[in-house]
């Protein structure tokens, strides 16, 4: 077995975060969540349970929702990460943020970035998701304030406008 001295403690890593190139240097144990929060200064993804139970750290990795506390940063070489900070007028994350505001879909707000990113992954795939798809998408995101009803309402409103948009496109 080679000794651990053979490898530098830090590994260079090229990551794309919200469309920006982010060259980093990370230890192998560093999670994607810690790399985002501490090395990129993006504190939107929240660090809560650190064991894949709560969903507060949810981000998109190449478009798929993942718990960033269960991903090592070194696994993400040349991969694309989207966080809540990527929200802007005209994109899915931004539309969800607006829907959450309009439907009062948060109380303390701690789970909100994770809820929105889980829904963003869904809406990117299905612009007008069914009720079952919406519920499934956020089943892995806990809200201890109990804002679930409004979170689902926010998602439904966007699904309804997605249906309208799709209808208009078809016409």
């Amino acid at each position, binding site marked *: 077995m080679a000794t651990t001295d053979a490898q530098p403690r830090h590994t260079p890593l090229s990551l794309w975060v919200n469309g920006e190139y982010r060259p980093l240097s990370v230890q192998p144990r560093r999670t994607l969540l810690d790399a985002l929060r501490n090395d990129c200064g993006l504190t939107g993804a929240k660090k809560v349970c650190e064991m894949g139970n709560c969903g507060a750290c949810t981000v998109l990795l190449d478009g798929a929702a993942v718990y960033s506390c269960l991903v090592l940063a070194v696994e993400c070489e040349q991969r694309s990460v989207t966080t809540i900070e990527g929200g802007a007028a005209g994109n899915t994350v931004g539309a969800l943020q607006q829907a959450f505001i309009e439907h009062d879909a948060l109380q303390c707000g701690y789970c909100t970035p994770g809820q929105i990113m889980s829904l963003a992954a869904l809406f990117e795939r299905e612009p007008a998701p069914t009720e079952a798809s919406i519920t499934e998408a956020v089943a*892995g995101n806990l809200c201890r304030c109990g804002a679930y009803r409004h979170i689902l309402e926010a998602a439904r409103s966007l699904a309804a406008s997605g249906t309208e948009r799709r209808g208009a496109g078809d016409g």
Partner: protein
Amino acid sequence: MRPLRYVSSSTLDAVVAGLTAGDRLLAGGTDLLPLLKADLVHTTQLVDIKRAPLSGAIQRTPGGLRIGALATLAAIADSPLLDGPCSLLRQAARQTATVQIRNRATLGGNLLQRPRCWYYRNSRSDCWLKGGQGCPAVEGHHEHHAIFDDSPCRAAHPSDLAGCLLALDAAVVLYGLAGERSVSLHDFFRAPDSERRRETILGNDEIITAVDIPALPAGTVSIYLKAMDRKAWAFALVGMGIVLHRTGTTLDTVHIAATGLAQVPRRLAYCEQALAGTTAADVHIDAALQVLGRGASPLPGNAYKLDLARGLLERGLRSL
């Protein structure tokens, strides 16, 4: 904190050679990372096998179906190839964990995940499976634990897919220093004993490369029912996989496997025998439910699992 190296795999031979030197393999990481963080896994090198010459493909083979070890649970849940006789696999994958976990977790890792037992997961508890003296669950908190005592360890196996694959008579393809071998899931899972405090017979130099599901006769039907202590994102208290085939009205194939009842996924042979060759009329179903607990020795806090298992089996049989 212990230093850790991270490398990507190049060849399967290099991967299995590294295993004998203490490497740990990283695929989805959904079980490995919590174990690493809890200091329950000790290694100096992680080998990322996602770039290994390993497959995650789900494909037809001359003998049935093959699912590559790197197939994610999301891919299994979404695969139309798994409709029909194997539809219980899609149902099970869909009910496993959450979208975020299913996007990462792989089939190989799912079959090798370690128990969810709170004593096992607590690095400070003296637990037989980790090399300690006794099983603290027996006289402690064991409401999620096994009702069969095939092992000094009372943890229940957590995998939804493992029970379903056992009901499908699937086999795992293993690769090690001695080459490739195929082992039926019946033999692959074995209750831990003093010689081998593990839930499988996987060699120290071996890796799962694929799972083979034999072809089933047309008209085979299946279902997976899962009881959880909440509606989503929980491990099974009891999971019940049923695979049936009828000739006319007579059941000529009855495969029933449960998760959550024993240290490893368990075929309910007495129930199968009670139903095989019958028409699954009420009287036959009742007979199967009666023998469901044969050989079990529930602990004071988990006898409810027997009722739960009977309920799931009855509901499943009546729905197929």
